[in-house]
């Protein structure tokens, strides 16, 4: 059962610029504040100067900071910051404690050299580990990139270094969608009498902005709060980390080692990062040479008997298609995570969308059915990564897990599961009683899944492959009737998963005439909108799908109960079309948004009102 969640767009963000007192942090902070004010934000700022007039350069006592809170309803500069800009190790040490959970630290990695670390009284060469920092850190080579940007300017070294602050400002402008034009105006005024200095700063701010663009720097400006207040131990988690951890849990509960084959791609790379760290739990995470090798290495690991996962985003899923088809044919367990982003092609790499649904469902050659799941929140990524693994193993099939940039990067408080919260995963090993007569495509009569003969086992040698196989012997077969039989078996195997997943639940006013439907990561926004509609006297029921293929067994029954069905999704209507194909008699209304941004609650409220008023 899903608990209620509230999506909070961080209506305000707190950015703390900090560095040495000579680093120009006050100027960078002021410009950011003024640009934001120019965009209609309320602002509140707090300059935090060093106490000493002339503290030693790079020392802890020499840290100068400027904290800016910008956004809606801002009345204070904020207790804690969302983004900490630390131009040197001392600034990191002074500032890291006031970073919010899920916040981002930007450091000038060039200043993190031996002397810088020593001045800030670090005792090891890894300040992040030494401070126990678990936040997202953007290690930007601010000094060297500033120098490079001004290489042809003819400026002396000292003047060049004075522009570092503006590079950092450019990067922050990228993170929060502040066009540099606003900052340029302010810089022009400030350096009206020094056009050369203005030109230099203009170059550097653009370089900082472009750097953010080039490395796909992103910071989630969303917080998803759950109403889950069961007693327990909690931690803060984002969706990508939750996804990674869900697989580890599935590995523990199945007893099959976890293998990840992956290739870096925004916004999914953090799953690779997290699982690469989790070698401390025995995870084998391999960064392969491309997306195809990533899925193929996972298929190889699956054949060898591992719980195998590959993580990617839309363009990577496209590249993996043929490999996934092989896993469909070989009937091997495999989980493919697609952290959806704006498409087609390279599209909007850092932005969120739900436009890979059709690709996940149908994007392969031949009749190639597989299971598709979609978590609804950052913490649900854990549960659904576990579920994807459970279904993959117990039903011997590839499963696509469709998360998105919004829930992947969004963070939430999460109750750490306790022993017994998640079930054992029953691995379909070849049963002892059939071992003598076993053939690779012998199926469990109930689930229709074949059995998993782990290589290395004596007597179970067998050959799998992409060619069609005889349903009895497992040998290559081109027999027409056998092919049709195998196609139908693979199809029904997926359909029978519906017997093994929870029923779909309807929330809010279940007896209303109107049902609002969402799927995946839009849960928080649609829930809130539906609640607001009910509060305003518009009776609506609400349901969010997280099992996409197969749909829960009671889906048809639910849909038949409502006169008006509205599907809200971040694409042109893929889930609506999918439902329509399954239930042709329904009249499905649609609310769609394809802007690379999550819904606003108001957009859904307005959309539903419009439909219900017959407009």
């Amino acid at each position, binding site marked *: 059962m899903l608990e209620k969640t509230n999506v909070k767009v961080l209506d305000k963000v707190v950015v703390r610029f900090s560095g040495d007192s000579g680093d120009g942090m006050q100027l960078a902070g002021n410009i950011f504040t003024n640009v934001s004010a120019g965009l209609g934000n309320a602002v509140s700022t707090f300059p935090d100067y060093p106490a000493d007039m002339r503290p030693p350069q790079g020392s802890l006592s020499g840290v100068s900071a400027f904290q800016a809170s910008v956004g809606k309803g801002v009345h204070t500069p904020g207790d804690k910051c969302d983004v900490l800009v630390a131009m040197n190790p001392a600034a990191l040490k002074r500032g890291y404690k006031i970073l919010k*959970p899920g916040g981002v630290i930007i450091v000038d990695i060039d200043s993190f050299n031996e002397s810088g670390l020593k001045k800030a009284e670090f005792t090891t060469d890894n300040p992040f580990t030494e401070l126990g920092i*678990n936040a997202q850190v953007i290690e930007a080579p601010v000094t060297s990139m500033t120098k490079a940007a001004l290489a042809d300017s003819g400026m002396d070294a000292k003047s060049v270094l004075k522009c570092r602050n503006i590079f950092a400002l450019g990067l922050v402008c990228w993170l929060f969608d502040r066009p540099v034009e606003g900052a340029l105006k302010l810089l022009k005024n400030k350096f009206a009498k020094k056009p050369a200095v203005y030109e230099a700063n203009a170059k550097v701010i653009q370089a900082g902005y472009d750097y953010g663009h080039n490395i796909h720097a992103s910071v989630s400006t969303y917080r998803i709060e759950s109403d889950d*207040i069961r*007693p*327990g*131990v*909690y*931690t*803060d988690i984002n969706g990508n980390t939750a996804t990674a*951890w869900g697989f*580890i*849990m599935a590995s*523990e509960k199945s007893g099959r*080692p976890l*293998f990840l*084959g992956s290739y870096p791609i925004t916004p999914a790379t953090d799953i690779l990062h997290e699982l690469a760290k*989790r*070698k*401390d*739990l*025995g*995870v*084998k995470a*391999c960064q*392969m*040479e*491309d997306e*195809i*090798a990533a899925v*193929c*290495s*996972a*298929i*190889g*690991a*699956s*054949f*060898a*008997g*591992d719980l*195998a996962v590959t993580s990617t985003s839309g363009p990577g899923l496209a590249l993996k298609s*043929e*490999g996934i088809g*092989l896993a469909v044919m070989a009937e091997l367990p495999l989980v493919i995570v697609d952290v959806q982003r704006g498409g087609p092609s390279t599209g909007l790499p850092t932005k969120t969308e739900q436009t890979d649904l059709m690709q996940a469902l149908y994007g392969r050659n031949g009749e190639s059915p597989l299971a598709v799941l979609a978590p609804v929140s950052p913490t649900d990524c854990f549960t659904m990564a576990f579920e994807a693994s459970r279904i993959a193993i117990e039903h011997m099939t590839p499963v696509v897990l469709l998360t998105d940039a919004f829930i992947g990067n969004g963070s939430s408080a999460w109750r*750490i*599961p*306790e022993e017994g919260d998640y079930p054992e995963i029953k691995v379909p090993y070849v049963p002892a009683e059939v071992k003598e007569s076993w053939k690779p495509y012998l199926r469990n009569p109930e689930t229709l899944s074949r059995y998993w003969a782990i*290589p*290395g*086992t*004596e007597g179970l*040698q*067998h*050959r*799998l*492959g*992409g*060619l069609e196989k005889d349903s009895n012997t497992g*040998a*290559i077969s081109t027999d027409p009737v056998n092919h049709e039989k195998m196609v139908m078996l693979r199809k029904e195997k997926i359909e029978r998963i519906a017997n093994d997943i929870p029923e779909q639940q309807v929330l809010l006013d279940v007896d209303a005439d109107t049902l609002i439907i969402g799927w995946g990561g839009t849960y928080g926004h649609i829930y809130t909108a539906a609640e607001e509609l009910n509060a305003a006297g518009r009776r609506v029921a609400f349901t969010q799908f997280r099992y996409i293929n197969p749909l829960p067994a009671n889906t048809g029954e639910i849909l038949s109960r409502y006169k008006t069905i509205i599907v809200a999704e971040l694409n042109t209507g893929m889930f609506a079309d999918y439902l329509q194909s399954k239930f042709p008699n329904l009249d499905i209304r649609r609310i769609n948004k394809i802007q690379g941004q999550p819904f606003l609650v108001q957009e859904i409220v307005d959309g539903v009102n419009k439909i219900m008023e017959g407009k």
Partner: protein
Amino acid sequence: MEDLKYIPANYKSDQAVRWCPGCGDHAILNTLHKAMAEAGVAPHQMAVISGIGCSSRLPYYMNTYGFHTIHGRAAAIATGFKVANPEMTVWQISGDGDGLAIGGNHFIHAVRRNIDINMLLFNNKIYGLTKGQYSPTSPRGFVSKSSPYGTTEDPFIPAELVFGARGNFFARSIDVELKVNQEVLLAAQLHKGTSVVEILTNCVIWNNGIHNPITDKEVRAEKTIHLRHGEKMLFGKNLEKGLVQDGFLLKAVTVGQDGYTIDDVLVHDAHTPSNFLHQQLAMMDGETLPLAIGIIRDVDAPTYDEGVSQQVEEVRAKKGFSTLRDMILAGETWTVE
């Protein structure tokens, strides 16, 4: 031979072999059965993973674990398999199209990583299964169905790719050289790391006789040289010819002529880390210098699968988490009563 645990028949599956009569692949399959029996690898401890193409049908003819996968990807699939189960012996079967065209990227990266698999590269310089198109190893000007006026591109020389990817094992044989086949397959099995074995095979249907200028019985002794570690590089019908150093290059001479004695003839060292001479030997093409067969390079280096396993063990020993919950609880948490 009595003390062998396995005989070649133990590696034969019950499937009828469907290669064309006279195809070079038959001989290699039989040699693989023999070599594995000699190496004493249990059939259930072995996986044979292939891509697509004539040669990639090989797993079906092995009574081992086998996976006939998709075009070009066998190296990546074999990599995942070996990392997941480093205990097993993994053979990867590819042809020149599968391994060097569509699968070229995976080929070089597997070699670079030095994953402990044995790669059999069947090089018949043609696409057979799709009925006769030129391949990435077909010579410039080669006339085929897809190059009716001759190709306008240069071929890959597989050995050059292996050395370019910093490979540590390269051996070559010819389908009809049964003894050399046995020797190189066994050496590939014994070598830890990516072992690339190129076998020149004859496609009787689409490219019959492509290797004849080198492999014909009448010329083979003159056109090829069988390299053996620690032995003089001699060739010719009566082993009267040898390879000597000529500046930075190699030269073929007749021992006893032009002032060359047997002492001038180079001794093959397959184990020297420097690949300078290995490359020169592997690049000899049977034109001015004889084509090298046998084990050209066989050098120990850290393997990828062992590296991954060792790192997992080291990190686990250091951090000592036994469960996910342990690991999470060691981070920042709070309690709701």
